[in-house]
Structures are given as C-alpha cells and as structure tokens.
C-alpha cells in the first residue's frame, strides 16, 4: 500500500464523521506524510497501523457519537475505572477528585472535600433516621422549617415595614402640607376680604391664615426633604443590607455543605 491508497481508504472510512473533522484529520495525515518525507512513506504507514482501519477506528471513536468497542479505552487509575472516551465528569460511577480540577489547592483538598461530602450526607441521613424513628419527627421537622421561614418572613416584614412607615410618613406630610396650604391660603384670602368690612377681625383672620399657610409650607418642605433625601437613601440601605444578608446565608450554606 502506498500513501495515496492509504489516504483514499482512510477518507472513505471516515465518511460518517462530521465533515469539518474529517477534512482536518485528512489534512493532518497529509501533512504527516509530507513531513516524514517520501523516503519514510512505508514506515509511516507501518506506524499508522499498517492499514487505514486502525487510524479510522481511533478517529471515529473520538468524533462519533456512536462508540465502537475499543478494548484499550477502559483505564484503571487511582480514581477508579474510567472509560477514556467519555468526559471525566460524566463517568459512572463518579470518579474521585481527579487532576482535571482547576486549582492545585482544590486538588489538595480534593480528598478532604470528598470525605466532608459524605459527612454531610451522614448527618442528613442521621437526622432523617431520627425523625423517622420518633412519631413527632415529621411535625418537628415541619416545625423547624416553618420556624426558619417564619424568621425569614419576619425579617422581610420588618424591612418592608420600615420602608412602608417612612413612605407613609412622607405621604402624610404631603397630605397635611396640601391641606394646610390650601386652608391657610383660603383663610388669608377670606381675612383680607373681611378687612374691608371689619378691619380688626379681618386682620386677625388674615394673620391666622398666614400662620397656617407658613405651617403648610414648612410641612411641604419636610415632605420634600423626606421624599428626596431620606427615602432613596433608606431604600438603598435596606437593599444593601438585604443583599448582605443573602450573601451571609449563602456562605453559611456553603460552609455547611463543606
């Protein structure tokens, strides 16, 4: 067999792998023959297994979804048995922590993580067993869950209640401001009119009206101050602490899982 024949047969055998992969593989082997040089052509063919079957088989195993049975694709390592054609995290049974982690520290903790995982599982199993053992277990568990959710709900309620209270204050101020301003203005106007007929009384009413008007303006200013300055800051503060609380919960959960 010569190079052309080899490559031709190989191309034929690779018909059922994706087009792009086939093209690249053939280009690779073409290059390989070129780099080896014409004088090494026979040796290359021998290195490739003598006939295209072997090369085609290993390529197909790599790039096809339907796997052919290859006896050297099972491997025993200290992580247990694995099929080397399948990505590491899809092995069954799941292998122990392996070198394909990202960080070396994680690798060093790898074995520890494994044990801690089973420890958490043990704890959960023990709790469930105890709960099952006593008849009040289910209720107790339900009670605990209810308590946790109740606490969470209470915290949310507090936060939102606080926000609502301030909101209510602002609204109240606004309402009062509106009322007093209009009332005061009306009174002032009425007093001025009254001045025509009864100056003394008219002045009194006007004066009182102006005072009420002033109070109204003060209320308006307070409302504006609350609305513009306090509320946004308060909302942001509440949101920030809420997020911090979430993060804290997440961390606690993570350390619990570890």
């Amino acid at each position, binding site marked *: 067999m010569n190079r052309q024949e080899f490559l031709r047969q190989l191309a034929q055998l690779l018909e059922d792998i994706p087009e792009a*992969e086939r093209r*690249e*593989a053939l*280009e*690779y*082997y073409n*290059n*390989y023959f*070129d*780099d*080896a040089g014409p004088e090494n052509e026979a040796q*290359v063919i021998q*290195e*490739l*297994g003598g006939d295209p079957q*072997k*090369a085609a*088989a*290993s*390529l197909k*195993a*790599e*790039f096809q979804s339907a796997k052919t049975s290859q006896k*050297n*694709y099972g*491997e025993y*390592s*200290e992580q247990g048995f694995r099929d*080397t054609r399948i990505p590491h995290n899809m092995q069954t049974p799941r292998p122990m922590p392996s*070198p*394909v*982690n*990202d960080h*070396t520290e994680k*690798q060093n903790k790898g074995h520890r993580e494994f044990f801690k995982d089973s420890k958490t599982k043990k704890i959960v199993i023990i709790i469930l067993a105890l709960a099952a053992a006593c008849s009040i277990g289910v209720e107790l568990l339900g009670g605990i869950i209810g308590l946790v959710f109740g606490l969470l709900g209470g915290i949310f309620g507090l936060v939102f209640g606080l926000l609502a209270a301030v909101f209510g204050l602002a609204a109240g101020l606004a309402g009062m401001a509106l009322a007093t301003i209009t009332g005061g203005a009306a009174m002032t106007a009425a007093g001025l009119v009254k001045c025509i007929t009864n100056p003394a009384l008219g002045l009194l009413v006007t004066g009182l009206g102006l005072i009420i008007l002033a109070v109204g303006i003060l209320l308006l200013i307070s409302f504006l101050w609350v609305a513009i300055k306090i509320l946004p800051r308060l909302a942001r503060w509440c949101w920030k602490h809420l997020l911090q609380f979430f993060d804290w919960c997440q961390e606690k959960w993570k350390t619990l899982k570890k």
Partner: protein
Amino acid sequence: MVFNTGAALLDAIVLAVVSRTKEGTYGYKITQDVRQAINISESTLYPVLRRLQKDDCLEAYDMEFRGRNRRYYKITEKGAAQLNLYQSEWKKYSSRITSVLTGSYHV
C-alpha cells in the same frame, strides 16, 4: 511496552512535549518526540491532539511551509496549568507504584 498508557497519561506526555517550545511544534515532530518516551501507535496521537485542542489546552495555528499549510500546536495557559497538575500527580502516583512494586510499601 508492557503497560498500557491511559488517556490522561497520554495527554500529559503530549502537553509536556508541546510545551518544550514556546511557539509550539507540528504533528509529525510531536509524534516523533512522544515516541521517544513511549512506543505508541501514531494513529492514537492525532485524536489526542484534537481533544486537547478542543479542551483549550492546545491552540493550533497554520503556517506556510514549502508551499503547503503546516499546522502547528502550541500550549495554552490552561494547558500549562493542566500539565503542572499532571506532573505533580505523576510524582505521587509513580512513587507509590514504585514502593508497592519494590516491596517497601507496608499495608
């Protein structure tokens, strides 16, 4: 060769060979270098290269050579990190095997 070279070890060897040159090497050269260490069939090597490339441990680039396109493979950062891991794992693994085989490992 008495012992079968598993996929992980093959990956490690290929990564080590490719990492020797910063600009990377081409397929034929990689094969020749790998075969200095282990007597492996070339037909198993291209799939390894392709898989490492897909896993972003190697990157491929083409360069013209004597009127044809030659594909070079060079190691990426992820590949270098992976190689590091393989190297430390191999140290531990091989020393344990050695001690078991030479009888110095006591259960």
